[in-house]
């Protein structure tokens, strides 16, 4: 088992190397000069040249790439010229904010999504089922930014219940934190919630129609036991896959939600970085997102092994 995990871990290294290379190339392909972006269009040619030299931009691309890789190996992610700070602490400071939003959204999505999925599976082809599956369809296809603005209009502007934006401060009490989390959390949760509901439903329907469930029922096992203990357990594996994928998706999808709600996470930082042609910061944030993505996939694989021992050998 440990060997498997270790092997899986080592496999992530080439993936990350590819990500690093691609981001490096992509940032270099962005039109516009980072030195100009920092100094403004009115800066003199000498000032710009000096800035370019300071940022190593006067070196050839392979040289820049090697320098960047060297830095990475030594744990140096570079210096962000737009924030005037090292990239690593900058990114590390933001991760908890994004992570807390993402996790709240996912927990919410999992609870509501799976519940709806299970109920819909039990009540297959009833009005309840149709209603929620249509709702889930809307949930998957609705643009987050639209949904966010509508929710704010209703709950903040009209009803005055929740703050429009920002992140709460624990200094003002737990209520402040929660009230600031509700709207962005819910918005971010819509897509995974809908996905969970649909996945759970189909997985449950499949499980509930299998022979052993029929046997359990025939033996007179109570219905809630049949569904909750025996059915759900076997319907779980596909859910775990979806959960892992959604975790990564939500993490990156938080960019839009964070932008709308002025949530000080990775998303707002990526936006600033791109607008300022801040190469090191773009590379840094993309790399961290990639690490998150790869890490989530790894978690899914491991969880799969635990849930379904048959996978181990594969």
């Amino acid at each position, binding site marked *: 088992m440990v060997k498997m995990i270790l092997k899986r871990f080592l496999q992530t290294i080439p993936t990350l190397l590819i990500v690093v290379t691609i981001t490096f190339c992509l940032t270099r392909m962005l*039109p516009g000069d980072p030195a100009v972006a920092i100094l*403004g269009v009115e800066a003199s040619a000498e000032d710009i040249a000096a800035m370019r030299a300071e940022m190593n931009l006067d070196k050839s691309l392979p040289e820049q790439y090697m320098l960047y890789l060297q830095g990475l190996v030594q744990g140096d992610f570079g210096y962000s010229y737009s924030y*005037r700070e090292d990239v690593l602490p900058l990114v590390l400071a933001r991760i908890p904010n994004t992570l807390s939003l993402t996790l709240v959204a996912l927990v919410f999505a999992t609870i509501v999504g799976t519940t709806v999925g299970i109920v819909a599976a039990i009540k297959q082809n009833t009005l309840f089922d149709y209603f929620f599956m249509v709702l889930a369809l809307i949930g998957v296809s609705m643009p987050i930014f639209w949904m966010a*603005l509508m929710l704010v*209009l209703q709950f903040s502007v009209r009803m005055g219940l929740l703050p429009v*934006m920002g992140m709460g401060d624990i200094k003002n009490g737990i209520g402040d934190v929660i009230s600031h989390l509700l709207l962005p959390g819910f918005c971010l949760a819509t897509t995974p919630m809908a996905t969970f509901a649909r996945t759970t439903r189909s997985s449950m329907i499949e499980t509930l129609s299998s022979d052993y469930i029929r046997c359990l029922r025939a033996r007179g096992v109570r219905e809630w036991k049949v569904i909750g203990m025996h059915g759900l357990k076997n319907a779980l594996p596909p859910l775990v896959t979806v959960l892992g994928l959604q975790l990564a998706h939500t993490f990156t999808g938080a960019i839009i939600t964070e932008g*709308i709600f002025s949530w000080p996470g990775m998303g*707002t930082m990526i936006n600033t970085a791109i607008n300022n042609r801040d190469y090191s910061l773009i590379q840094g944030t993309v790399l961290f997102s990639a690490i998150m993505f790869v890490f989530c996939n790894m978690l899914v694989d491991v969880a799969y092994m635990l849930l379904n021992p048959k996978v181990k050998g594969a």
Partner: protein
Amino acid sequence: MRKRKITALLLAGLMAGMTLTGCGSSGGADSTTGAGTTAADAAGDTSAAAETDGVGGMSPDASVEGQSLEGTVKIGVTDAEPVEGGTLVISMPSSPLTLDPVDYTTVYESHVMSNVMETLFTWNEDYTDVEPWLATDYTVSDDGLSYTVNLRDDVYFQDGQYVQGRKMTAEDVKYSLERSKEESATDRVCRDFFDYVEVVSDTQVIIHMTAPAGPFISELAEIGTAIVPKEEVEGWGDDFASHIVGTGPFTLEEIVTDEHVVLAKNENYWGTKPHVDGIEFRIVSDSNQAINAVETGEVDIAMYLQGEAIQRAKDAGLLYQTASSAITYIRFNLQNGPTADPKVRQALTMAVDIDAMVPGIYQYGEATRAYQPLTAYSWAYNASYNDLVPSYDPEGAKALLAEAGYPDGFTMSLYIGSTTYRERMAQMLQYYWGEIGVTLDIHSSAMAEWSATVPDSWQDDVVNSYGVSWNSDPDPYGFVDKFFNTQTIHASSNAGGYTDEEMDKLLVEGFSLTDQEERKAIYDQIMEKVMNEYTGIYYAYECRNWAVSPKVHDARLRADNQVLVATSFNNVWLEP
């Protein structure tokens, strides 16, 4: 069974909530209180209105109600008994990144800086001219090479890490101005002309120049030349950028990047103390969210509204539109291609119905028609030259084109940044010019790419015209010198390649004179010459769009996007 019911109920409730909000979106227009009136009243208060009448009334079709062309707009009541306390919350779309006067480059930074730090001179209430601030008065030598500046004797720095309420002296002025010259990444304090500062006494300095520079004193009102204490700058090193100390009415308390910047009232301020306890600049990147926050009271003033948010602010009675310190224009390639011929340029200008085009581009009334390459509230602005822009006459344009040797028209290119406003403008030009047989190829790209293509494009026949806007303080130098000086021919501001010996002479003269009346006479000549050469179509002043909560009083919104909080002529207070 019961559990299922509860879940179902919960979800149904959720669903109902969503449906309600869905309907809510269309019902936003019911709260129409007097937005237009408030803003229009405010505009009427400003004395400079008469001068700009000629411009303000030009586009009857544009929804310009409440929009003003003055440099400053007053907000709220100015004569009531002010209330002390409260925090003024101002939203802006992007974080200030460095607050060091020599390093800052964006307006977001100057918003914060100008409340914490102060300059020797400052812009007057109408934003037309500068007046002494940390200085008391000044004299210029006849040769324009030295300025004797007397300083206030009662100015103290805020408490910082290395200075505790020390008095500001002439040494600080010397240090700050010379630092600004040496270390600024962009041209500050007219650095090619400013030589050094001589300290005469604690309250007097003589500023020596290498050559006369007319705009010098107004450059000293720019926040990049703010007076800072040496101990703090050197003590903090690079970190001074996030620990600034100045002499201003507010002190910097906290910066959380991408979240907010908090300022607190400076209890030891030498001038009139602010009514508000502090200012919070909150970073809100989404305009619609900024409006929502003003409506709920989370934000008092929202800056930089865009697109539909402008309409929403208007519907909610919160909108203010002020003139901008920028001119939006298209310029022609003056050296190569068909547009090198002034007749062709005149024809292209005549072919466009600018009065109809401007409200077409700016659907929310967020711009006013312009005529000249200068802001309308500048002291050098002379409305009589507006008539030099040929009026809309497609037939006349066709005749001119034929005269110039293009009876069947030609094909030309237009380079713009890919924003809605520019693209809409380009499409309209495509239509208008199409009517006279000119085919327009639109090249729309990211601004960064635009900046890489357009400068120096006069050297060949690829870029025939380009559209962009240019921003500067009201001194005409900031516009005409950048547009028409041979020295700027490699810069983006003169990418059309304007070069003319007579013009260069006039520009040097206008720059080196220190008397404003004399300068105005020169700039009149310059403007008349330029307007007769059809260098471009200077079509719009895009205005600044703000949403201001009705509880904000005695604030000033200025064309360069600044909210003035505590100055010699205003002091914001908040209605509880």
